[in-house]
Every structure is written in structure tokens, then in C-alpha cells.
């Protein structure tokens, strides 16, 4: 696997760069100084809930929205300035990807290959490969409108990958997609990144942060945290515990009343609690009478997100 910490080739800048991006829509500030840089061959994630500014950021990188401040660079250029050769090196899969609903899987792929003016032999070879990894081979004759949500997203991704862009921007390709298809989409992306492609992907699923080389957790148009997933988790400053024993509903109600408890979440049949540093004794005193105790647990990205928005508030 390409190591994200390796420096880029000498003299080469980042493949994608966002510097202090600001964009307002009337009274709403969609981007509020968002910055990040993505190295060549890196899989970079913008992770955050709806309304965090992810879509606006992706659109800014694709040169589709004007910025009120800051600048975007893709392969060293202003994406809004464009240019034919530059366009060819950039791929975009927007959130509402428009396939031709009355065309079949194969017809959609062929249509996009013509759009990119791919030689027939190249198209045949790439289409066969993409259909195999998306496991859509059996469905080439099915019309796009008859595909399930997950299959539709996979076809959209295949169409966006056909011309093998150097940089691929993906806006929430896994949103609303079931867990099995989500996994397959990520495996597909990793295969292409392994081949040298640079990918910027947005997702509302916090757990998908772990599948990226580096991520920015985005909230209210800025990054709450950014870095390699493991480094972010290792640097987590609050504490996370599994709650052992006790009635789950009673424990949940008790935890909700404790200010040192940042969040409680279901963890299997038990609960997991994010506790502000140093708050453990207080929580244990409160849970003791309920027959519950705390066991240290590993934080995940949702815990991190919950802790950081609490700090930011």
C-alpha cells in the first residue's frame, strides 16, 4: 500500500490543495476557512455530517463554485481556469450522479467512453475490468433505473473511473449505500489508489475515516481535526469506556445527567461512554449503585467527532 507519510517526488507539490476556503450562500457560511493538502497517490477523506460543507468543498476543487475567499489548487492549477488537458486529468462523481436511467449498464459505460473519446480497444479493456471489480458483469443489460441504490453508485463510480483521471473527486459515493456495497466501493477505490490515483472523497459515515490515508473531520465549514486516522485516534485526549453490567436503559439515563460524560453510544449490547479527561471517578461513583463499572475502550472517529464539537461549542 502507498504510504501516506512518504514525501512526494522532489519538486512536486501536493496533488490537491485547499487554502482557507470560504464560501457563503446568503446568511449561510458553507465554508469557513477550510484548509487541507492531498499528496499524489493519497486517499484523502472529508468526513462530516450533512451541512458540514463537504459538497461545497468538492465543488470548489472541481472549479464549479466561486469562492468568497481562499484558493483551490488541483495539480498546481486553478480548477476554475480549466483547460482541456487539465479537465482530462480530473474526474468528478457528484452526489446526484446523472446516469441515463433508460440506458443499460453497458450503454451508460459506452456513452461515457465516447464522451472521453476513448479508443475502442481501451474502452473494452477498462470496461471489462471495472465491471469485474464492481461485480456488475451479470447486470450489463439492466437499465440504470432498475438498479438498487448500491449498484447505481457502483455504476456511477465505474463511469467516473473510465478515463482513469489522475485526480478523482467523489462526493458521498457511499451515502445511503448498504454496508456490503459500501465495503466493495472502498475496496474498489483502494485498488485505484494503489495504482497511483489521487482520491478526495467525502462521507457522512464517521467509521469510514479509518479507510482513508488521511482525513479532515469537517464541521460547520472547517476542519475540527486533520491527520492520519491512527494519529488522530492516538492523540485523543478524552477517555472512552465500555460500561459493563447494569441495566442499559438505567445506565443510559444516569449518564445523560452527568456533565463530564460527552456522549454515550450503543456498543453491542452494552454502552460506550466518552468521558472528559479526569471524569472517570465521578462516573464510577454515579454508576456504582446501578451495578455498572467502566472498562477502558478504544476511541473511534465518532467519539473523536463528538469530543471535538463539544470543545468547539
Amino acid at each position, binding site marked *: 500500500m502507498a504510504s501516506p507519510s512518504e514525501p512526494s517526488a522532489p519538486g512536486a507539490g501536493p496533488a490537491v490543495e485547499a487554502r482557507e476556503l470560504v464560501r457563503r450562500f446568503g446568511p449561510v457560511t458553507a465554508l469557513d476557512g477550510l484548509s487541507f493538502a492531498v499528496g499524489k497517490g493519497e486517499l484523502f477523506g472529508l468526513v*462530516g455530517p*450533512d451541512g458540514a460543507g463537504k459538497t461545497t468543498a468538492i465543488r470548489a476543487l472541481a472549479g464549479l463554485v466561486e469562492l468568497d475567499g481562499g484558493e483551490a489548487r488541483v495539480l498546481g492549477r486553478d480548477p476554475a481556469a480549466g483547460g482541456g488537458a487539465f479537465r482530462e486529468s480530473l474526474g468528478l462523481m457528484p452526489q446526484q450522479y446523472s446516469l441515463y436511467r433508460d440506458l443499460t449498464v453497458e450503454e451508460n459505460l459506452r456513452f461515457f467512453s465516447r464522451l472521453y473519446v476513448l479508443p475502442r480497444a481501451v474502452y473494452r479493456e477498462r470496461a471489462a475490468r471495472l465491471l469485474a471489480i464492481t461485480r456488475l458483469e451479470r*447486470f450489463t443489460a439492466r437499465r440504470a433505473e432498475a438498479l*438498487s441504490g448500491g449498484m447505481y453508485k457502483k455504476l456511477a463510480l465505474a463511469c467516473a473511473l473510465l478515463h482513469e483521471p489522475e485526480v478523482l473527486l467523489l462526493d458521498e459515493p457511499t*451515502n445511503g449505500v448498504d454496508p*456490503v456495497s459500501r465495503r466493495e466501493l472502498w475496496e474498489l477505490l483502494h485498488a485505484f489508489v494503489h495504482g497511483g490515483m489521487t482520491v478526495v472523497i467525502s462521507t*457522512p459515515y464517521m467509521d469510514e475515516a479509518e479507510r482513508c490515508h488521511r482525513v479532515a473531520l469537517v464541521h460547520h465549514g472547517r476542519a475540527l481535526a486533520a491527520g492520519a486516522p491512527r494519529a488522530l485516534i492516538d492523540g485523543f485526549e478524552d477517555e472512552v469506556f465500555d460500561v459493563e453490567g447494569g441495566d442499559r*436503559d438505567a445506565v443510559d439515563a444516569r449518564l445523560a445527567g452527568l456533565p463530564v460524560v460527552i456522549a454515550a453510544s450503543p456498543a453491542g449490547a452494552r454502552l460506550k461512554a466518552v468521558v472528559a479527561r479526569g471524569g472517570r471517578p465521578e462516573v464510577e461513583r454515579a454508576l456504582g449503585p446501578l451495578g455498572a463499572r467502566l472498562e477502558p475502550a478504544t476511541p473511534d472517529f465518532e467519539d473523536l*467527532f463528538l469530543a471535538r464539537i463539544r470543545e468547539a461549542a
Partner: protein
Amino acid sequence: MTAPAIQAVGLSRRFGAFTAVDRVSFEVERGEIFGYLGANGAGKSTTIRMLTGLLAPSDGEARVAGRDVGRDPDAVKAAIGYMSQKFSLYLDLPVRENLRFFGGAYGLSGRDLAARVDEALERADLRDLADATTGGLPGGVRQRLALASALLHRPAVVFLDEPTAGVDPVARRTFWRIIRELSRGGTTVFVTTHYLDEAEYCRRIGLMADGRLVALDTPAALKRAWVPETILAVRGRDLARGQAALAALPGVKAVAPFGAGLHLRVEPGRPSPEDVTAALAAAGAADVSVAVAEPSLEDVFLAVVGRGGAAEVSP
């Protein structure tokens, strides 16, 4: 013994030659939180559309809140609340006015309407936002407003189709607290979600694949039945180097990347966490830690739905 809140017997729906829902039978008790899971296109939404009286079954029958969905769909609609994936709200209206509008559509008026609106605001934890303009509210609050509008007529059963999609983690927790309060108050909740962690709050879960209901039980029983192996969670550096060595260890059934680490499915007790640590160290991985993990509902989902391309089903 009270009648179940939902009872489906051999419920089926065909579209031309395609069978979207295939002889599905189950019961949901009054006050139960019932999770309905499955891959995209497995037949979940079609089932919900039949149970809510929006789509006639091709075969079989279902009773919801005591009414027959095939014979008396209008009575079903009056007895249930339904929050669809694409709900619509009037964005230029305040929260309270949206609820008054929907209450009017249910035939409520005057003092009765005002009281029901207040009650729904209270139940969805929206009292402090009653006068806020809907369009300026974050997605998670709008979702709660959509829920409140589905509760106005005090339905005995509510259907929630992916109510938390895309919502931030704080709002997701608030939403589930409300769902659990509804259930404690006796309302039956039928819910679909792709967030398998929150599905742990369901008392029972039905899993759909290929239009069939292939598993139905409590989360704990589903894990015992579908994931009999032990799950070992591995963390460390340069784990990729040891992946082949792990796969070759006796007792290892599967090695899969899981977040930044690996998840191993192994026979009970074989190999031990120590065996795994040793194999990885020999292969050149560093900082290795291995822990026994409780199977997650995602493990169950993958076991039930992920085999044989069962996820590849059209709607």
C-alpha cells in the same frame, strides 16, 4: 394477550416478472422497536409501502394496528405515522406552522390542533425551536420535525425509513433517545437504517435479502447464530506484511481489513491472541495488539447478506 401491532403472513409483491417481496411473515409486538435491515434493493421499502397501505400486496396479507392493509388501506393510513426517506417540510414556515399544516391535513382544528401540536413538539424535543424558521435548521432538527409531524395524530405504530441518514452523531443520539421514549410510552416503532450501531437499540431485527426475510431475532441471538466464530481485533504497524501469514494459521477463517487494523474470524480459542501476535511479529509488523472483540451487527449483516452476491438485487 394483546394482538400484535404488526402481523404479516406470506406478504408478497411482484412487479412484472420480478418479485420484490417474497412471502414475508413476521409479527411485531405493541411497543417494540423493530429494525428492518437489508442491502439496497432487498425489498425493505416495498415492505414498508405495503404495511403503510400505500401499495397493495400481490399475495399474502398484513394487519397493522388491527387493520387489514389490503382491504382497508385508508384505515391503516389513519392509524399509523410514516416518515419517509424524502419527507417534505415548508422551509419558509416556522416549525410550529409546519406542524399546524400537517395537523390540519389530519382533520385536526382549533384547540385540539393546538394541543396536539404542543404535544408533538414536546415528544420530538422541539419546544425551544417552535418559532424558528424551518429552512435555517440543521438536518438533524428537520428530521425531528418530520418525526413530530408523523406523531400528530397519536399513531399506535410509526414507520421510520432511514430516519438518521446523513445526520450528525449528536443529532443521531437525540433521535434515538426520542425513539426509545416513544417505545416506552407504548408506540410501536418499525425502523430501517444503514447505521448498524444504532440498530443495537432495536429489540428485534429482521434481515432481508433477495426479497426474503432470512433472519429474525434479537441482536444478541443473531450474533450467536450467524457469527459463531471468535472475532480478533488486531492493531499495529505494517500489518499488511503479516496478512498472508495470518491467513495460513490453523483455525483462521477470514482476515479482513477493519478500519486501520485487521479483523480475524477464527475458530473458538484457535489461534489465541498470543499466536496471532507472534505470527505478526515474525512477519515484521510492529506495535501489535490483539483483543477479542464482540461480533458487531455489521459482522452479522455481512454473514447474512454478503454471501453469494445476495447484495446484488434490483428493487
